């Protein structure tokens, strides 16, 4: 694994992004933003922190970067996938072309990627699956065999099933209500998939409970796991120390680290799940 430290010229930026386009994708809203400089510094697993403009809401809203793309006119673009859940995500989902969004990014430590071409299983639940697609592409470029498992409550909340088939060797879908793919949860489906894929590494993004199940299944299977945690992040930039995750460090000692700064991607076996 190579850790990717943030060096000079690769740190985050605070910019005013512009909405280039927006469309509905199942239960989600998919936004394409011109965010000068942010796309260029992106690595899979990074997120952005958005500022609400109303003066009444001060905490940031963290969102996975789904994809970055070079475009002709606007430099590279950044894509987000929004599930309207509260005031901030509803505001984002309602934005129209030309709207401006203050954001900081790319933020967080990205997924560590294997040096060798190994077998990788990527598990994404709900919108969080969005974070895995750029990773899947890089892994494929490195010659890894990529298997994707998408999970959600129902069909509308499965993100990226089509896109997954373009990137991955094998794709599975599970939904709690069985409306798409097999009926069940990621935790239930994973052990079988890990075996079939002869997985060396498991990457996952989604709710903590799912990540915990993924980490356990990976450990049982003898694979490394890298999980992208969503802990409430008032600032997203490492300033407020409010997104604490209890981990066991390389030194075997328990530490409290910031999800936004030392994470949000962690080794599954390092997280003290019981204390989260």
């Amino acid at each position, binding site marked *: 694994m190579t850790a990717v430290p943030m060096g000079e010229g690769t740190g985050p930026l605070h910019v005013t992004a512009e909405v280039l386009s927006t469309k509905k994708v199942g239960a989600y809203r998919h936004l394409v933003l011109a965010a000068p400089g942010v796309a260029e510094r992106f690595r899979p697993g990074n997120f952005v922190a958005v500022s609400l403009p109303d003066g009444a809401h001060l*905490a940031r809203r963290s969102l996975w970067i789904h994809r970055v793309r070079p475009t002709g006119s606007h430099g590279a673009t950044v894509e987000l996938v929004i599930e309207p859940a509260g005031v901030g995500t509803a505001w984002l989902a309602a934005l129209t072309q030309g709207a401006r969004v203050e954001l900081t990014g790319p933020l967080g430590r990205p997924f560590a990627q294997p040096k060798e071409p190994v077998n990788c299983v990527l598990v994404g639940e709900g919108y969080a699956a969005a974070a895995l697609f750029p990773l899947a592409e890089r892994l494929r470029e490195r010659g890894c065999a990529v298997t994707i498992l998408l999970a959600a409550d129902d069909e509308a909340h499965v993100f990226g099933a089509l896109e997954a088939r373009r990137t991955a060797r094998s794709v599975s879908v599970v939904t709690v209500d069985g409306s798409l793919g097999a009926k069940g949860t990621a935790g239930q489906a994973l052990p079988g998939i890990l075996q079939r894929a002869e997985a060396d590494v498991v990457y996952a993004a989604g709710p903590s409970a799912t990540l915990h199940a993924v980490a356990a299944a990976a450990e049982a299977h003898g694979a490394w796991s890298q999980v992208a945690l969503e802990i409430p992040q008032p600032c997203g930039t490492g300033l407020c120390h409010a997104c604490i995750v209890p981990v066991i460090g390389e030194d075997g000692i328990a530490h409290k680290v910031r999800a936004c700064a030392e994470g949000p991607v962690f080794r599954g076996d390092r997280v003290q799940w019981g204390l989260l």
Partner: protein
Amino acid sequence: MSAPTSFDLPVMVASGCGGTGRELAAYAQEDGLAGIGGFVTRTLTMDPRAGGRVRVEESPAGLVRAHRLQNPGLDRFLMTELPWLAQQGVRTFVSIAGATLAEYAEITRRLVRAPGVAGIELNLAVDDPRRLGVFDATEPFQAARVVTAVRAELPVGVALHVKLPAVPSRIATAARAVAEAGADALVVGGALPAALDNGTPAELSGPAVRPVALRCLAEVRTALPGVPLIAVGGIATADDARGFLSAGAVAVQVGTALLHDPTTVFRIASELATNPGDDL
């Protein structure tokens, strides 16, 4: 009273709102963190305080934060945080709280031995100090005792700033006591005792509290016209900063606004440098 701090760069980072410094530096202008008036660390205690996570909730135009003085402790700070700040030339003010007067003195002794400490900010504004196991400096004479204890350990050239509770009806009396005991500057305003939605004791900060901070400043300014005052509480724009400076503060601290936009403190500093405002 000596006044070793110069306030020609009147914009600082408020205690606890700049991470370890490194994270914030990513958003600084050319001079980095050294280009602003000062960086106040989060409040440090002798021993680390894990105490659960800092819990932050939004309230209208504010953040409500339940913290229990979470911090890595003095040793770890001296080992992992201060050296970087010193190396970058940051004017670092270390915020401290102690369980006893002796502990305050001990923390100070150890801090001033390390290179790179521009000053100490005594956090006498801890909400409900007994619950948090901190020396109770609510009464002015107790606050003065802390100042005396710390002052005695300070070499020339290290400033002593004292942060007071933001209670307008009582702040002037507390200010007088600590100024007489030897504080170089007072930090007035700051977070207000509040509660999370579930009733947990917490502190309210952000633009919501700005009018209270302004009142605190006015009270102390009137009572002690000669003492340098550093204002904090809800400052989010250069205009806010100009308002506090023209009300008599020698400097301002920016806190919660940084969580919303990490460039705020640098933008305010450079806007003030370009256009300090009518009264300045």
